[in-house]
């Protein structure tokens, strides 16, 4: 993880690992690409149709590109609200993961002290623990802290569950930085916070990106914790809000497809812009660096 990931030769212009691709290879890959994209294209096109048109002409282009499905979803079905909640929760929890993870990773990666190795392993144990199985005590804890039905309950649980991977990745990165960097700054009389914030942190920026992406999508997409913690409609995140939306509009397919499309657009757009970061970030941990 600490070295730049050994991501595949082919896309960096190295030689292909295997030889002898044929039209059959192309055909299989193309077929799979169609299998992936067709459902999403049909979803997107249906979002512009009327329900009648979806039933009568499910695969064609819309006769008229109707935008009112989207405005209905955005205003009437509260998607604006759900988006806002998801944005707040995701931004806040990723920010906490990055801040606390970098601080802990710096301390564990740059200093030798009693209990340091133990603490590192303690965080690492979290990589394996299925946190959801603690949902009953968590529910009681959140109730006692009066955090049930607040966005804080989500922010705190996402931040806490993101820390093990953040500490693991960032400790590894901090360890690889040359030792004289901070020694020199210390001799010059720089304070500990300044060394961390101005000298060390900028050097681990690539690792921060990996940590951010690794957590961004799972947090944005999570359904389980909002399902348990959130009651009020005005506090629902997008995945939870969508279940209410589907219950309410279940015969109105035009609105349903518009809702699905609208919910998918931000992630897909971000993915198209940053696909390499996403692929690397989301498979971090499964792919040896």
């Amino acid at each position, binding site marked *: 993880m*600490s070295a730049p990931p*050994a*991501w595949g*030769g082919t*896309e960096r212009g*190295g030689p*292909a*690992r*295997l030889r*002898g*691709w044929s039209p059959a*290879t*192309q055909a*299989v*890959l193309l077929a*799979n*690409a169609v299998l992936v994209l067709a*459902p*999403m294209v049909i979803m997107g096109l249906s979002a512009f149709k009327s329900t009648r048109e979806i039933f009568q002409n*499910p695969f064609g282009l819309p006769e008229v590109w109707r935008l009112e499905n989207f405005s209905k979803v955005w205003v009437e079905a509260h998607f604006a609200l759900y988006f806002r909640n998801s944005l707040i929760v995701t931004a806040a929890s990723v920010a*906490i993961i990055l801040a*606390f993870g970098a*601080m*802990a990773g*710096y301390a564990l*990666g*740059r*200093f*030798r002290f009693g209990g340091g190795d133990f603490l590192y392993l*303690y*965080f690492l144990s*979290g990589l*394996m623990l*299925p*946190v959801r*199985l603690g949902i*009953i*005590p968590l*529910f*009681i804890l959140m109730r006692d802290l009066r955090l049930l039905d607040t966005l804080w309950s989500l922010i705190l649980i996402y*931040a806490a*569950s993101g820390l*093990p991977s953040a500490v693991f990745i960032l400790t590894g990165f901090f360890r690889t*930085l040359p*030792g004289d960097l901070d020694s020199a700054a210390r001799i010059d009389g720089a304070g*500990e916070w300044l060394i961390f914030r101005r000298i060390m942190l900028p050097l681990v920026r690539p690792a921060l990106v990996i940590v951010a992406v690794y957590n961004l999508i799972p947090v944005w997409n999570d*359904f*389980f914790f909002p*399902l348990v913690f959130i009651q009020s409609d005005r506090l629902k995140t997008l*995945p939870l809000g969508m*279940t209410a939306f589907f219950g309410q509009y279940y015969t109105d397919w035009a609105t349903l497809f518009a809702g699905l499309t609208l*919910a*998918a657009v931000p*992630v897909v757009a971000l993915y*198209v812009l940053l696909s390499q970061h996403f*692929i690397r970030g*989301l498979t971090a941990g*499964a792919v*040896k*660096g």
Partner: protein
Amino acid sequence: MSGSTRSADARPRAGLSVHTGRRLWLVFFLAPATVLFAVFITYPILSALAFSVYGWEGIGRRGFVGLQNFARLFSTYPYSGLLVNAFWHNAVVFVITMLLQNVVALALALLLARGPWGTRLYRVIFFLPVTLSLIIVGFLWALFLNPVFGIVNTLLVASGLSALARPWLGDPQTALLTLTLINAWRWLGFPTIVFLAGINAVPDEYIEAARIDGASEWAVTRHVIFPLLAPAVTIIVLLTFIGSFNWFELPYVVQGVSGGPNRSTDVLSLFFYRMAFGEVDTGLQDIGIGSAVAVLMFLLLVSVSAAAAVFLRRREVELA
């Protein structure tokens, strides 16, 4: 992962002796993460383990009951039947996902490793559904698989296969398989990319050496690439196992909290969730039973993860 960090271990940290002023700084750097992790991860998980040996009335904890919750879970109606039924479904999901999704992923990775035209674009396309929320994926396919208006049956009828058209998600015979295939549609790109990265990480010299010895492409695949892919395969098997035995979102949004129709898609997480928070139609809630299920799932997941970690570490040593 850990191999590369380990080598750099001693070097940069050596010169720094820790005295009191710095000790305070260390506390300052470490406290936020440690407190957050301890309160919201460690404490709930340890409590969850402890909860299983207490009696419960609703959400109120009563006295210590030893292993009674486990005894009730294993031997009383309806719990024992539900447990076995749900466990069996998780196992089926795991096996089908391994056989279909992961084998197809390996095949796709081997094709992509030939570096055909468009490799880069294919990688991006194949991975796209992995970023989509399972809620979107579940609802989208529920619409496509609608028995009357869904495009899947429409396509089957249009291509003369109307005998195959059926209520895919409404028929207990096909519901679990259909749900597993939806799941595979969403995840396929993940193992594909992991396998491709594994293949691309095979050193050139090994492949060239085999070719110079006159090995065919299949022999290179079989005798050079496959053995070196073992760590990637182990990780995918492990992640598939964890994913299959934690399966929750997709059955929940598509089939409901009871794992319908007729419990044909009930899985351990749904069973656990119903015991913890109550089933809508029956009102049945039993936190003692729920906690016992959680402990069983915990032991299963942690022991399998630990076994995989040991296996991976041993491979790393062998290859080093």
